């Protein structure tokens, strides 16, 4: 069963996807929550220091979220199927007999 699983499952890609999804998915949700907390702290602050701390927290969290979006767009533009392969002489340029399908 283990041999079958390793033959059919690309573990190398899978663990990278899980890590990226945790950072870009759950990570962004959590950081975005702290961004909102920062804004609330700043809005309810009774002194300048607390207000700036709130905005700083919101700013750092906002920068993280923007960075994740930029990385996402980079991944979209540079995905493997967007890279131009060497020309082939047959229609295999479109449909190769081996390799991964693009869903």
């Amino acid at each position, binding site marked *: 069963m283990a041999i079958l699983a390793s*033959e*059919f*499952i*690309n573990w190398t*890609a*899978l663990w*990278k*996807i*899980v890590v*990226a*999804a*945790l*950072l*870009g*998915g*759950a990570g*962004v*949700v*959590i950081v*975005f*929550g*702290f*961004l*909102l*907390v920062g*804004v*609330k702290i700043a809005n309810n602050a009774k002194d300048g220091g607390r207000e700036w701390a709130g905005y700083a927290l919101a700013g750092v969290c906002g920068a993280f*979220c923007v960075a*994740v*979006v930029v990385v*996402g*767009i980079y*991944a*979209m*533009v*540079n*995905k*493997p*199927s*967007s*890279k*131009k*392969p060497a*020309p*082939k*002489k*047959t*229609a*295999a*340029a*479109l*449909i*190769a*007999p*081996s*390799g*991964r*399908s*693009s*869903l």
Partner: protein
Amino acid sequence: MGSELVLILVVIAGFSFDFTNGFHDTANAMATSIATGALKPKVAVILSACLNFAGAFISISVAATIAKGIVNPDVLAGGSGLQLVLAALIGAMTWNLITWYFTIPSSSSHALIGGVIGATIVATASHEVNWHNLIQTVIIPAVLSPFIAGGVAALGTYMAYRLIRRLGQREARTGYRYGQICSASLVSLAHGTNDAQKTMGVISLALIAHGDISAAHFSVPLWVKLGCALSIALGTASGGWRIINTMGNRITNVESPQGFAAESSSAAVILASSYYGYPLSTTQVVSGGVLGAGLGKVGSRVHWNVIGQMLSAWVLTMPGAGVLGGLAWAIADLFGAHSNAGAIVIVALAAAGAFGLWTLAQRNNITPEDLDRTSVTPVEEAVMSGVPPAVAAA
């Protein structure tokens, strides 16, 4: 070389499939934003349509492939290639319309692959299909993807609701709505990039089989890019309200933090899998994300009967589209494998079937007005989620 008429029918079928792909998958990006009232339904689908159109032009140096590594390429590019691709597209499109009629989100990609495999098996033989690659690159990712997206979304949702204790319902609701719009937009863009290219690949393949463009110096013609981008955008803009209702309202009652968690997780999984060469179905990822978001909120209710219906449809998608693709080929073959008459007959039958399903769907039509939640108050939203009004108002 196939006939000009069959090529034209393939192009029309390709654009039509892209249109069905668009309205079938609008829900993936926008269902949660509509369900939480972050966007008005019509605004959401127009935004999604624009981003799908733009996405179709991102990274198009090589169009994505159809059934790459699963079906022997010589079969699709050979003498009967045009008729075979036409049968596959008709099978996939008809399956998309059937699942749309039954309001079930299912994978358009799997339908297309199923259509190709079905037509290939009937036209040639099963040994032209690489079953090992099918399991490795389609079946296994399809099984894993909802779990990955669901797990990530559940974690994100759970953490979001812990933070909401510090925020208060009103701030959280407003704040996460803005986040939702952003994450849903990213899913729309990714959808345009992935899905419009598939049909570009199909039409380009037909052009190669017909001898119009060279496989050795292959590039997608501009009119194909524009046509596919426009078809998927128009399909997206047309709504697909039936599936939006299922994805946004029938799996679980989605609140804005849950919607944001579901869409962010889905976007992250889709983009990461695409980048690392492990392509997944957008529909299955987003469905898993919405389910995870439902499970991640303590006390939230998940409608397992709807999940059961979706799972059944996912299991049936490839065989179902395969049977329809094979049937289309068999009918066309009755008139001769290379005849125009066969191609015309299957296109006419598909058009009649599509019209019939559309007519039936009008009996229990769902309109954008039915789905509009922009005027729902926080108390009403909480009551819909099962929270007592007194708690919701606090």
